[in-house]
């Protein structure tokens, strides 16, 4: 505890906001991350792509301590995630996450979904939390849905609520775990629009995605993962036009050529 807070205080904004070093993660005998290293600077948007089973989702879940790691280090603003006495509350104040399956709370209204976190964690009053929530609903273009239940919304709307819920926590980094993969095609764009908007405002984002157009548009850095390793990491321009490795070339070939 004291260890991690000391490290946290020594962090300065010119250092990477998230610093991942030599991370190893196995589920039983299956090694899903084989020494992954990556830095995320403040305001940077990183898009991670790769075939399924390559460890992309696991990697960002490890940043949020939803999965533990066996070896290596993950620092979020200097806070070490890979330690048994991790202050999870502190970590979750810094890191927000949006899931593939939205994971909204079905027994709560949209507004309640957005306020329960801030009221409990950021100790906001109900009125302040609701004011904030409405502000963020505005930002995801659905202020009028505040009093509905998640089941009354379309998939795209639900995912936008989930993004707003994460925004309400006013975290420093947002993680997106394939946010459009569970959506019907006609709803993908409304969610991507929100994410583009978010990237433009300078939010630090790590997105696992299959949307190449989106990635190309917003990413500062493209990361290609395969079999638990980061194979290639480059600017989108270079990444999509002149990929260096064979594996990356083959993957892009598969998804871009129809």
């Amino acid at each position, binding site marked *: 505890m004291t260890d991690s807070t000391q490290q946290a205080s020594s962090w300065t904004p010119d250092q990477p906001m998230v610093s991942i070093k030599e991370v190893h993660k196995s589920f039983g005998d299956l090694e899903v991350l084989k020494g992954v290293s990556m830095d995320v600077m403040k305001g940077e948007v990183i898009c991670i792509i790769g075939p399924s089973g390559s460890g992309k989702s696991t990697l960002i879940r490890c940043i*949020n301590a*939803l999965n533990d790691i066996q070896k290596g280090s993950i620092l979020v603003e200097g806070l070490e995630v890979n330690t048994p006495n991790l202050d*999870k509350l502190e970590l979750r104040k810094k890191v927000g*996450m949006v899931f593939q399956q939205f*994971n909204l*709370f079905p*027994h709560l209204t949209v507004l309640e979904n957005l306020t329960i976190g801030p009221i*409990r*964690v950021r100790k906001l009053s109900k009125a302040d939390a609701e004011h904030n929530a409405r502000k963020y609903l505005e930002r995801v273009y659905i202020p009028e849905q505040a009093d509905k239940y998640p089941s009354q919304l379309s998939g795209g709307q639900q995912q936008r609520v989930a993004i707003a819920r994460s925004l309400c*926590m006013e975290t420093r980094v947002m993680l997106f775990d394939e946010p459009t993969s569970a959506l019907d095609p006609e709803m993908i764009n409304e969610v991507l629009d929100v994410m583009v908007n978010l990237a433009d405002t300078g939010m630090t984002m790590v997105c696992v995605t299959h949307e190449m157009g989106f990635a190309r548009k917003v990413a500062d850095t493209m990361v290609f993962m395969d079999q638990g390793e980061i194979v290639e990491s480059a600017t989108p321009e270079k990444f999509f036009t002149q990929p260096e490795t064979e594996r990356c070339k083959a993957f892009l070939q598969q998804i871009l050529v129809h």
Partner: protein
Amino acid sequence: MKQIPGINQTTTTDLPVLKPMRTDVVPNSVTSTGFTRWLAELSVWHLSIITVVIFSFSTLANAANTYSTFDALDALWRWMPFLLTKGFFFNILISVLVMIIGTILGVLLGLGQISLFGWLRKFCWTITQFFRNSPWLVLLFVVMLAFPFQFTVFGFTVPVPDWLKAVIGLSLPIMANISEIVRGAVLSVPSGQWEAAESLAYTRTQTLWKIILPQSFKRMIPPWMNWYAILTMATPLVSILGVNDILKLSRDAMESEGNQPELLVPFYTFILLLFFIYCYPIAKWTQYLENKFNVRG
């Protein structure tokens, strides 16, 4: 039409086709409302017909006897207020007490079964399985014979009446089954809910009480009511142990009427009808709630 490689679009197959699997199957204990389901599907007509057949059969069979079925019905009529207020009411009282105790203990035990502490989880699991799989009558006997009829605390002697022992004995299996209902309902909430709450900096306890239990509560109600109906049906078991429930008092009544064989059918039919009238609405209501909450998808 564009051909998709590997997919033959023109011919059908004789081979068995694997149908899409349902993935939203709720654990068995949550949906185990089989008994009330069966009961709710009985109609009042079925019951009336059965009653009439039983009565007329007994009348014909005993036509030669001097003590007629009408005499027996007359006896039943005289005993009815007593049997209702002293007997059946006591059965209901026992069932309510058992349900209260069983629910409180069962919820604790069920929450213990999903504890993060391995030893507590194993302990609660063992208790649950043990009492779920024990015959109720044997449990009743054990409690009756093993518990003292009174005990002394700080110089006060507190008697433990038989009916209280019976309540304890019946509470044990109810507790175990409710423990399973709680466990099953909590586990039936998708893991994404836990993760989302965790990402919002909720602790495990906060997640359980604010996110998971409110969602699983609805799923617990129908099976819980199902167990209440089963329990109510089982309350006459306590008569074997000398508790003055409806069955015991009916036998006493028949004895005081001279143990005429004609008494048996009216008296026992009366008891059956009482339980039916009490449990049938519960069964209907359970079914209604189950459909409303859409537990079965």
